[in-house]
C-alpha cells in the first residue's frame, strides 16, 4: 500500500485489521456456506476503497463524456455494482479467468486494464485497450475475455474456458458472469447441464440488479431465485452490495471448484444506479425513491467507508485524500481519452485473421482496398 499523508493521524494510530460479521448466504444444495466472519486488513480496505472509488468515478466520467457525445453507441454503466467486481477480484488469483457480458468496464479495470485505456476505448481512440476497434462491450486483457454483446453467449464461453483449465490440469477456475435478464437464456441451461456433467471448474455468477433493461425480475422470471436455477448445481445467494460478503462467497466457490467438485451458481444481489444504458433514464420502470433508498442505505463504497472508519482502519480525511487522488487520475485519463488520435484508417482492415500472411480486404467498393495484417 502506498504511504498516505494524513493530516492529523499517524500511520501507527490505526488498527492493522478488523473482523466483521457478515450476512449469511442463502444456500441451495449446500450443507455449509461461506464464513459469516470476514477479516479485513487496513491495507486490503484501502485497496478495495480506492478500486471501487476509481470505478465509480470512471463510470460517472463516462456518463459525462457520453452526454458530450464523445462516447458513442452503447454505454452500460456499472456504478452501484462496484462491490461485485472488486469483491470477486479480491477472492481469486490473477491466473483465474473471468468473462462477463456488456456491463464490463468495472471488470476490465479489476482485471488489469488502466483507466486511460478503458476511457480511450470508449472514445474510440488508438490508445484504447482494443485500439478503438471494440468499444464499450469488447474490452479484453489477460485472463479476461470481455466484454460480450450477445446476452447469455458468454456463459457457454466461460464453461469452455473452464474446460480448458480442467484439460490442462491447472488449478484455475473460470467465473462466468451474467445478469438477471440473461438468466432466462436457454444456452445457460445447456451450459449448466454440461458443466455439471463434466464437473467443469466454472463458477456461474448472476449479477441480479433487479432489472433486465426495463423489465423487473418479477415480470421476467417464473422463479427469481437465480441461485437455484442451476437446479442440480449447488448455489449461493449473496449480498452483492457488501464487498466482504462477495469476497468470502467467491473464495468459498473458488475453493469448491478447485477441489474438483464441479460448478457452482452464485447470485449477487446488487443494484445499478444508472439505467440499463446511457439511452435509458432508468426511471420509467423504477422510482427515484427506490434508487435514492439504495444509495443512502446500501451504497457499497459508503458501507466500506463506514466499516473502516468505525473500526479504526482509516480516517475520514485519509479516505477523502484517496477521493481527491482518484478524481485527479480520472481527469488525467479523460484528458488522454479525449486528445488521443483516432485509429489510423489502415487499422480498418487489420486483425481479421490471426497469424496470417498479409492480404487485402475490400472496402465499400472494388477499388478501395485495405491491407490486413
Amino acid at each position, binding site marked *: 500500500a502506498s504511504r498516505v499523508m494524513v493530516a492529523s493521524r499517524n500511520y501507527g494510530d490505526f488498527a492493522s485489521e478488523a473482523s466483521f460479521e457478515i450476512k449469511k448466504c442463502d444456500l441451495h444444495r449446500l450443507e455449509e456456506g461461506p464464513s459469516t466472519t470476514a477479516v479485513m486488513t487496513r491495507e486490503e480496505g484501502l485497496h478495495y476503497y480506492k478500486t471501487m472509488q476509481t470505478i465509480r468515478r470512471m463510470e460517472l466520467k463516462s456518463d459525462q463524456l457520453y452526454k458530450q457525445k464523445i462516447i458513442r453507441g452503447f454505454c452500460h454503466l456499472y456504478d452501484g455494482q462496484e462491490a461485485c467486481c472488486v469483491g470477486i477480484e479480491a477472492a481469486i488469483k490473477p491466473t483465474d479467468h473471468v468473462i462477463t457480458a456488456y456491463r464490463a468496464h468495472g471488470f476490465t479495470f479489476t482485471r488489469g486494464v488502466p483507466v486511460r485505456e478503458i476511457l480511450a476505448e470508449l472514445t474510440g481512440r488508438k490508445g484504447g485497450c482494443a485500439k478503438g476497434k471494440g468499444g464499450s462491450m469488447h474490452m479484453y486483457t489477460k485472463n479476461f*475475455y470481455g466484454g460480450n454483446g450477445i446476452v447469455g453467449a458468454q456463459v*457457454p*464461453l466461460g464453461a469452455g474456458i473452464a474446460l*480448458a483449465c480442467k*484439460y490442462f490440469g491447472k488449478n484455475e477456475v473460470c467465473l462466468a458472469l451474467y445478469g438477471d435478464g440473461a438468466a432466462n437464456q436457454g444456452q445457460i441451461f*445447456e451450459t449448466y447441464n454440461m458443466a455439471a456433467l463434466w464437473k467443469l471448474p466454472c463458477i456461474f455468477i448472476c449479477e441480479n440488479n433487479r432489472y433486465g433493461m426495463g423489465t423487473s425480475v418479477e415480470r421476467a422470471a417464473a422463479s427469481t431465485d437465480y441461485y437455484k436455477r442451476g437446479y442440480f448445481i449447488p448455489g449461493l445467494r449473496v449480498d452483492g452490495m457488501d464487498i466482504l460478503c462477495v469476497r468470502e462467497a467467491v473464495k468459498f466457490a473458488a475453493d469448491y471448484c478447485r477441489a474438483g467438485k464441479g460448478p457452482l451458481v452464485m447470485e449477487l444481489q446488487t443494484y445499478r444506479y444508472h439505467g440499463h444504458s446511457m439511452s435509458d433514464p432508468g426511471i420509467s420502470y423504477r422510482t427515484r425513491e427506490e434508487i435514492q433508498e439504495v444509495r443512502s442505505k446500501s451504497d457499497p463504497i459508503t458501507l466500506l467507508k463506514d466499516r473502516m472508519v468505525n473500526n479504526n482502519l482509516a480516517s475520514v480525511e485519509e479516505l477523502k485524500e484517496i477521493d481527491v487522488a482518484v478524481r485527479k487520475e480520472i481527469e488525467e485519463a479523460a484528458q488522454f481519452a479525449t486528445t488521443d488520435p483516432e485509429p489510423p484508417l489502415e487499422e480498418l482492415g487489420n486483425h481479421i*485473421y490471426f497469424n*496470417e500472411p498479409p492480404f487485402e480486404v475490400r472496402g465499400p467498393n472494388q477499388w478501395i482496398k485495405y491491407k490486413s495484417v
Partner: protein
Amino acid sequence: AAAVSQVTVRDALNQALDEELERDERVFLLGEEVAQYDGAYKISRGLWKKYGDKRVIDTPISEMGFAGIAVGAAMVWLRPVCEFMTFNFSMQAIDQVINSAAKTCYMSAGSIAVPIVFRGPNGASAGVAAQHSQCFAAWYGHCPGLKVVSPWSSEDAKGLLKASIRDDNPVVMLENELLYGVPFEMSEQAQSKEFVIPIGKAKVERQGTHVTLVSHSRPVGHCLEAATVLAKEGVECEVINLRSIRPMDIETVEASVVKTNHLVTVEGGWPQFGVGAEICARIMEGPAFNYLDAPAVRVTGADVPMPYAKILEDNCIPQVKDIVFAVKKALNI
C-alpha cells in the same frame, strides 16, 4: 503408406483427425455421438477408443451450448474440432460461430485468437427433406473473420481438415454426406502425415479450352461427368474445384475465363445470394470480364425448400444434364 490407393472421403477425414489428435495434444473433438457411437456418420470411428474421454467428447443435444463451450476453449488455446451432426443444426449455434468465434480477433484488435474448426455434413443428402438439406456455403462465406472450406475429393477432405485444424482462425468445413462413402485415388504424398492443402487456393481438376466450370463439393464430380459427356461433342471444359469458399481463389477462375471466354458456375445451394452470384459479381469487377464472350451462367439448387419425393428431389439439385445444358447455353450451341 502404399503407393496410390483408393480411399473413401470418410477414411480420409478419419485419418486427418487421427493424425492431428496425435500430433497436437491441444486438439480435441466434441459433438453429438462422436465418441462412443464412432460418429453419426462414422467419421470419428475408433478415435474415442484410441484417445479416450478427454480428447473425444460426446455432448448432449445442445448445439448452442456446446458450440459456445468449444469457442471458449479455443480462446484459451485449445484447438477444438466441433462437429455439427449436420450444418442444419448449426443454425441453432450460429451466434457462437459468428459473434463469438469469427469476430473476436477483430474486436480484440488481435489479442484473442479462436483456433476452432466447425465441421459436419452440409447441403443435400438423399431423401432427408427440407429441414435437413440446406447448404450453408453462402451464409458462412458471407462473414469476415471466418474461413470456409468445402472439400470434394478424399485428398481435399484430408488436406483441408488438417489445414483447418492447424489454422489459428475459426474455420467452417462443409462436408457432404453423400461423398463420405465415395472412394477417390490418393497419392502416396496425400496419404502422408504432413499432407496439408492451403486454404484459399482452388484446384483445376481438368484442363479445358472452351468453357470454365467452377464448383465446390459434390457438384465438382457432376461437372467432371458433364465434361466427359461434352468432350464427346468436341467441347472441352476446364473444371475448377474451388476448395475454399472464403477466402475464395477468384484469380484461378479469372485466369481460366481469360483462356476459355465462357463461365458456368455450379453449386448445390439456392441461387439467390449464392456462391455463383458472388463469382459472377467478382468476375464482372475484374480483368476477366472483358474476355467473356457471353454472360456467365449459374447452375444451382432449385429455389424451393427441398421436397421429399425422389422425382421432386432429383429435380431440385443440379444434375449432369443441367450442367451440360448450361454449357451449351453459354456457348450458344
